[in-house]
């Protein structure tokens, strides 16, 4: 029963509220960059509520179950990951549900759900977008895996998130070292791709394939996908904070630092997305398998070296 409360309070409600707020920050900053006024604070929530009132369209010949189930699976996995991250962060001594490997695997499920939804749409543009999303996963997974090995090495080959937080509490945050910083940079780019934001929004590419994988979604299905993406806007930066920046602490001034770290990360994501053009999918894969992987390897070597 206590777990039900964890899921509802932390995994779902708190994550959704922060995610929607972050989405508002993102939209507001984007608007200011483009000399617009930007939406009011409640706009992201209003959007989702509005979508709930719209009609649910299913493409002719598509499997209704597969089409409508895909967003739910994506949402459920984000809820699970954020519950796991919250509880490991609140009490690092006690391990809960999963470790680093579990989180890495669970974090690919939202992307897989978008791919499945796109495939189930029976629309060629959706197939195209979904296949790009898959190629993007192949691209960023290599440097991402390498980069997250840096915290593993630095915490003495432990894959428990709690051990990483404890190690950072005792010896300073990992981002403070050379290897940690390089790995953090790599992870920031991978995070941008995981979130599907410019310059890596090839899977949706509104101006080109009209929304790609989610082109056929309308009403509640689209609302759930939107909510999932907004929640990821909290979950992924939170994961990066736990790995490299000491996580979120609840004692006095540290809590304020934690909030600032998170807002800083969201601002960074927004800046990257507003100052870059969209890349082609082959450029994206080349970028991740080339320079990013080199940088991640350098970070791992430095970490072995002890820097």
């Amino acid at each position, binding site marked *: 029963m206590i*777990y039900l409360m964890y*899921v509802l309070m932390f*995994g779902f409600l708190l994550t959704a509220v922060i995610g929607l707020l972050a989405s508002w920050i993102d939209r507001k900053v984007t608007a200011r960059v483009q000399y617009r006024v930007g939406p009011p604070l409640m706009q992201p929530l209003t959007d989702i509520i509005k979508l709930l*009132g*719209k*009609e*649910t*369209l*299913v493409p*002719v*010949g598509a499997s*209704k*179950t*597969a089409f*409508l189930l895909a967003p739910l*699976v994506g*949402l*459920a*996995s984000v*809820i*699970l990951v954020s*519950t796991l991250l919250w509880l490991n962060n609140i009490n690092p001594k006690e391990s809960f*549900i*999963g470790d*680093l*490997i*579990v989180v890495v*695997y*669970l974090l*690919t499920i939202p992307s*897989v759900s978008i791919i*499945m939804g796109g495939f*189930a*749409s*029976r*629309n*060629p543009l959706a*197939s*195209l977008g*979904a*296949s790009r999303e*898959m*190629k993007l*996963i192949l691209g960023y*997974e*290599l440097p991402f*895996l*390498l980069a997250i090995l840096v915290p*593993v090495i630095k915490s003495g*080959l432990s*894959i*428990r998130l709690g051990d990483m937080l404890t190690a950072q509490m005792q010896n300073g945050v990992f981002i403070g070292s050379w290897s940690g910083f390089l790995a953090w940079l790599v992870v920031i780019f991978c995070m941008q791709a995981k979130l599907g934001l410019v310059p890596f929004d090839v899977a949706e590419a509104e101006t080109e394939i*009209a929304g790609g994988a989610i082109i056929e979604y309308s*009403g*509640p299905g689209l*609302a759930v996908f939107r909510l999932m993406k907004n929640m990821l806007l909290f979950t992924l930066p939170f994961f990066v904070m736990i790995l490299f920046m000491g996580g979120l602490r609840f004692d006095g001034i540290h809590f304020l630092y934690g909030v600032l770290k998170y807002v800083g990360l969201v601002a960074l994501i927004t800046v990257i997305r507003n100052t870059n053009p969209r890349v082609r999918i*082959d450029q994206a*894969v*080349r970028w991740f398998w080339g320079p990013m992987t080199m940088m991640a390897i350098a970070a791992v070597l430095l970490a*072995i070296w002890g820097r």
Partner: protein
Amino acid sequence: MMDFIGQSYGFFRSDPLSSFIGMFVVFFSVLTVIYSIGFMRGKKGLVRYYIYILLTIAASLGVVFANHLIVLMIFWGVLGLLLYLLIGFGENERVSYTAKKTFIIIGGTDAFMLLGAAFIWYLSGTFDMDKLSIALDNKIAVYAYLCLAVGAFAKAGAMPFHSWVPDTAEDAPTPVTAFLPASLDKLLGIYFLARISLDVFQMNGAMNVFLMVVGSVTIVAAVMMALIQHDFKRLLGYHAVSQVGYMVLGIGTGNPIGIAGGLFHMLNHAIYKSCLFFSGGAVEKKAGTTDLEKLGGLVKVMPVTFMTFFVASLSISGVPPFNGFASKWMVYQGVIESGKSGGHLWIVWLIAAMLGSALTLASFMKLIHAIFLGQPSRERKITDERIQETGLTMLAPSIVLAALCIAFGIFAYSGPLKAFIFPAVQGVVFSGVWQAGLATVLILIGIVLGLVIYLLGSAAKTREAEVFMGGEILKDIPDMRISGAEFYNTVQDIGVLKFMYRLAQEKAFDIYEVGTKVTFGFNKVLRSLHNGVLSTYLSWCLLGMIVLFWILLG
């Protein structure tokens, strides 16, 4: 049952490892026979077919419970012959070539195993495996181990002895593929590898590294080949190779958690790969083709087959909470554990294994799109969208296996690990955390939450609409269809991969093709001597005589 474990009967002996493998040999055999009733209906030579299947079961049990190396090798050789005969039931015109190739690769490596047995006799003077414990401290011992390992690799399909697996998968009848390369050969090959690595020899660091190299290369190279295939049975065949890498890697880590993970992965692999072949066979039976270009959009026609295929796909890609994840997760821990005893190579193995998992996911996304989802091909034989599943004998095995994929994932610890793996591998300590049962419950809660959001909205009442193509109508422009077979062409053209793929297309990594080329190369040299000119032959005779005289009289 319990009295049976740990007993010796002449040349045979049973212990926890062999008992659990023997049990699953019988389990997969039963499923295959049930499936064959549906799939092979109306084919010729069915009596012979079932006799071969029954002989295969008997020979497999013989291998599993044999304690005497020579007895084991006799059963092993019989299995190779039966595989050759069973592949012959395929209806493809290439089938005789494939059967010959398989027989040569398996038979050739059997010869190595005999050599290995001879070395063991030379070293210890006994063939009884329970009395052997050879230290790998001299050259002969290392050769003996390598010779026996080659046999295990060829049977399981690890690189570089893998090339028969994709060919067999493409050409042999589907139940045969599901039965031998996908399940039984994996169980037996990895059983034998585990047996020699854990009991017969005392492994050392260098040999563990050798196993981990073989494992990592197999994982990545085979899955890269799978990405670009156009025939779904061949694609599944490459995965049957790739997954062996995880098992070899697990055993190569040399620590209990890794070995247990490798063995658990062997079991899981047999389950989900048989399920994939069974479901794929159902599609083949109904649609009459295995070419990805000619399928598509079958989800409404075969919903149950889609579900079983989908569950097995998620399992093989290692998506939590399915069984493939549980065993891969244990292998990863084993790899990280092996880093604690010094050296930094574990990073390479870990990245290869985890990246291999992402690549597996990618190729299964392609399969699911090209077979079940996406837009139907114009060349698809099934034209109406009614539900047309295959008969119960073909559906039931897939459903049972898909259910096992879920159950072995969620109840991994209390179920299969406790019952089968831990008795065989002592002292397993988890360094990570994965509460599969709780996580599943939380995922279900999450899905319920999503459903509540759906019901708050209008999802209960849906309306069908044509797909949106910017105003175009999809039916009028069939060229707009995306089959999925060409999804990863962009990846194929990147840098060094392009070169590797070209080499692979020329079969430069196929030990059979390379061997053939070398053999025929010798032929060419020798043939040029036989040119039919008498004076050349006479001069060779003279030369030979001079050499002989010089040696004998000099």
